[in-house]
């Protein structure tokens, strides 16, 4: 008799909770719809069009023996780190094309890499389910692989990593569906972020002025904004029709862009709490894998699986130009810290510097 009553209570609680979540969802949709009083491109009607861009390949970085999966600029605006499918991590001087460091790691598919803010270390990881930090030595003969230190441990592949503003903490995203914040020195897990219902494929830290938040995107087609201190998911967006491969904040921190396998890139306004632009064309049918903004936020560089980089006018929603050159998928694009150049990494084993 008691068990039957308990069952009845659970059933009632469950259905009332379901009703409440339905009504909350409807309320959210209604709130967001009310605020959509103009389109972004309407608000930007009076803005002059972007002039012709004279961007072309200025450097070709050859040295990886396999697909380059990720890259990150150093704050000194000239060095960069790249990682590839064969487990190689290379630190380059992009001005001179000099390879300053090369580390061979035992794990293949190094899907993520990041330069530390001080420039003294790099972080990387992939199919080993870990994020490791490698201090960069001035001694060229030193075996860097031996000094590698495991910091993050996930239960599936590492898809993204970034230092959080100092060399002391790293934020990671993983195929295990979570993101996590780690102390580099001790390897301790400081905070974990749960909410995605499938692989998390990308994350980006909000610009420092905006405070302690970051955005993540994944195979569940959602992008989530998180409070780093509490672990709370504070905003969530679901409008892409397929996996979100990359998320990146607009330079002011008030918005972010995402790239998806649905062949579109989208722009989300955080204060209006909704999508405000879709960058798409009938002729673009391949997935977009990576995005980054130019310094002013006016241009959005997006790399695609059809080997091209499309440059979008963020405000007007139109495509400004298309950058050709890579001979396979573009896996990552990143604008340099002073905005003078764009670096692209590709499955054609090379990186290109565009300016």
């Amino acid at each position, binding site marked *: 008799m008691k068990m039957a009553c*308990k*069952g009845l209570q*659970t*059933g009632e*609680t*469950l259905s009332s*909770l379901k009703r*409440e*979540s339905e009504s*909350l*969802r409807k*309320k*959210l949709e209604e*709130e967001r719809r009310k*605020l*959509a*009083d*103009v389109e*972004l491109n309407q*608000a*930007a009607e009076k*803005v002059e069009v*972007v002039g012709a*861009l*004279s*961007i072309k390949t*200025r450097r070709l970085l050859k040295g990886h023996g396999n697909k380059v999966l990720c890259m990150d600029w150093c704050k000194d605006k000239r060095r960069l780190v790249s990682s590839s499918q064969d487990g190689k991590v290379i630190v380059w001087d992009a*001005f*001179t094309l000099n390879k300053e460091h090369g580390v061979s790691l035992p794990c293949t598919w190094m899907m993520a890499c990041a330069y530390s803010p001080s420039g003294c270390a790099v972080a990387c990881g992939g199919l080993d389910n870990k994020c490791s930090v490698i201090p960069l030595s001035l001694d060229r003969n030193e075996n860097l692989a031996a000094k590698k230190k495991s910091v993050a441990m996930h239960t599936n592949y590492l898809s993204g990593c970034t230092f959080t503003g100092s060399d002391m903490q790293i934020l990671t995203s993983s195929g295990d569906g979570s993101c996590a914040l780690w102390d580099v020195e001790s390897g301790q897990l400081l905070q974990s972020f749960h*909410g995605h219902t499938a692989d998390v494929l990308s994350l980006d830290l909000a610009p420092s002025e905006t405070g302690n938040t970051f955005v993540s995107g994944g195979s569940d087609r959602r992008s989530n904004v998180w409070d780093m201190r509490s672990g*709370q*998911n*504070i*905003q*969530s967006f679901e409008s892409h029709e397929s996996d979100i491969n990359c998320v990146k904040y*607009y*330079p*002011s921190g*008030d*918005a972010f862009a995402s790239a998806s396998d649905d062949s579109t890139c989208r722009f989300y*306004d955080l*204060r*209006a*709490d*909704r999508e*405000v632009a879709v960058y798409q064309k009938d002729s673009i049918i391949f997935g977009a894998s990576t995005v980054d903004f*130019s*310094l*002013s*936020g*006016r*241009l959005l560089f997006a790399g695609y699986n059809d080997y091209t980089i499309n440059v979008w006018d*963020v*405000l007007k929603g139109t495509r400004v130009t298309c950058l050709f050159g890579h001979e396979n998928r573009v896996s990552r694009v990143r604008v340099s810290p*002073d*905005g*003078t*150049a*764009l670096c692209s990494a590709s499955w054609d084993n090379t990186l290109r510097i565009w*300016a």
Partner: protein
Amino acid sequence: MSGRTCSSGHVVQAQKLVDQLRVEAGMERIKISLTAADLVRFCQDHRRSDPLLTGISASSNPFKDKKTCRLL
């Protein structure tokens, strides 16, 4: 017994979802006409310091080729 554990697991999940939605519903949102104006203003304020947008001369861009040799 296992049936009861199973349904209470569903309740926990449903409760988490409701809590999450309550957090999101409680957010203060601003009209796009206002937020878009700010996005536009940011672009305009920073356009002159955006080298990829405006294009800067070879002499100021280390990646562009110069006519003369430069000793690093």
